[in-house]
C-alpha cells in the first residue's frame, strides 16, 4: 500500500514537472502566414564576422566567412586570427549539410550537429510550409517550423513587422535563442548573438567587419 502511494506521488511529480516545463503549452494556436517572415531572412551573400565563442569557461575567437556560392549553396568558414581554419561547412541550396573540413579537436558529432542546427536557424532553412503553424503569447507571434528534431521558432511582433528573436527548441522548451541586429534586404546583419540554454555558458557572438584589400 505504502509502495503504491510512493509510486503515485512520483508519477504525479513527474507529470507536474513535464507540464510546467513545457514553455509553449499555454500558447494559443492562431492562423498566420508563413511567408510573412521571409522578409527577415538575412542576406548572407558575402559577409565576414569577428566571432567569439564561449563554452563551459573556454573562449575561442576568430573570423567567420559566410558566402553564397555560384552553385547556390552557402559556405561558412571559421578560422582563428592567425589564419588557421577550424571548420568549413557547406549548406546546399535546399537541404542537407556537408563538412568540408574540421580540425580534429572539433570533430565531435554532437558539436557539429549543434552548430549545423544553429546555422540552419540563422539561414532560415528547413522551413516547410506544410508543417508550419503559429502560436501567440504576450503580443508576440511564434512562427513554428518543425524540424527532424525539435522546432525552429521565428518570433515576431503581432503585425509581423519586426523579427524579435529566433529560437531553436525541443518540443517543450527553447534550447537556443538568437538575435540579429541591423541588416536589411540585400545587406547582411551587423551583428548576431546566439545563446544556448541546455549547454552551460555556450554563446556565440558575431560582429561584421570589413577586411582591407591585399597590397
Amino acid at each position, binding site marked *: 500500500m505504502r509502495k503504491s502511494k510512493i509510486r503515485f506521488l512520483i508519477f504525479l511529480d513527474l507529470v507536474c514537472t513535464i507540464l510546467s516545463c513545457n514553455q509553449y503549452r499555454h500558447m494559443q494556436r492562431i492562423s498566420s502566414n508563413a511567408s510573412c517572415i521571409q522578409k527577415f531572412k538575412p542576406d548572407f551573400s558575402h559577409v*565576414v564576422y*569577428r566571432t*567569439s565563442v564561449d563554452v563551459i569557461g573556454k*573562449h575561442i*575567437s576568430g*573570423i567567420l*566567412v559566410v*558566402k553564397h*556560392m555560384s552553385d547556390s549553396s552557402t*559556405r561558412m*568558414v571559421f*578560422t582563428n*586570427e*592567425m*589564419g*588557421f*581554419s577550424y571548420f*568549413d561547412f557547406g549548406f546546399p541550396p535546399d537541404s542537407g549539410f556537408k563538412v*568540408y*573540413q574540421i*580540425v*580534429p*579537436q572539433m570533430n565531435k558529432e554532437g558539436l557539429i550537429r549543434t552548430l549545423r542546427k544553429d546555422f540552419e536557424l540563422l539561414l532560415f532553412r528547413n522551413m516547410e510550409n506544410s508543417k508550419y503553424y503559429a502560436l501567440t503569447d504576450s503580443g508576440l507571434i511564434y512562427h513554428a517550423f518543425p524540424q527532424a528534431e525539435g522546432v525552429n521558432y521565428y518570433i515576431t511582433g503581432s503585425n509581423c513587422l519586426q523579427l524579435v528573436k529566433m529560437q531553436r527548441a525541443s518540443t517543450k522548451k527553447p534550447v537556443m535563442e538568437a538575435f540579429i541586429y541591423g541588416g536589411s534586404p540585400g545587406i547582411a546583419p551587423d551583428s548576431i548573438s546566439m545563446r544556448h540554454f541546455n549547454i552551460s555558458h555556450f554563446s556565440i557572438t558575431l560582429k561584421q*567587419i*570589413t*577586411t*582591407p*584589400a*591585399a*597590397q
Partner: protein
Amino acid sequence: MFKSISLVSFLFCFLFSVAQYQGYTLLNHPETFKKSFTQATATTESIKSDFKQEKSLSMLSENINSTGKFWYRKNDKIRMEYIQPYSYIMILNGGKIFTKEGQKENKISANSNKVFQQVNRILIDCVGGSMLDNPDFQSHIFENSGTYLVELIPIAKNLKELYKNINILIDKKDYTATAIEMFELSGDKTIIRFQNKVLNAQIKDSVFNIP
C-alpha cells in the same frame, strides 16, 4: 641489375617527392646555409616589425587580410598585435599563451596541450631560426638570388593533420624571416609578411608580460 633499378627508382622518388618552387633551386648541400644561418641568428637578440597577413580560402576565392605589429625576443617570447581589421593580441612567453580580444582575456598553458605547444614552437622556431632543429618537421632548403626558402613538412602525426607544409622565406642579406607561409591540407594558406624590421631593438619587458 635489380640494385640499379632500385637506386634509380629511389632517386626518382626522392626528386619528385621534394616540392618545386618557381625560381628556386634545391640546395644539395644545405650545411653551408645552416652554418651561416646559425651564426646570424645567434647575434639576433630581438626583432621588431610590422606584419601583413593574408589568409586565402581556396574554395571560396576569398582573402582575409589583416595587419599589425610584431615583437620577438630571444629565446621564447613573441607578441603579435593585430590592428586592422580587428584588434587582437597574442603573447607567447615561455610555456604560456595569452590572448586578448577586446576586453576578453584568455590564458593557455602551451605545455598542457600538445598541439598548442607545437604550433607555439613553430612560430618561435621560424623567427628565432631554430626551425631546422625541430624534430616535428622534415626540412628542405631552396634558394633564389635574394632569398632562401625553408620548406618544413610535418612528421608529427597531429601536425600532419593540420598542415601540408610550412615555408619560411629568409632574406639572404641578414638571414631573418621575411615571410611565413602555412599551407593547410584543405588548400587554404596563410602568409605572414614581415616589414620594416628592426633587429636588436630595445623592447620593454612589459611588451611580453602575461597579466
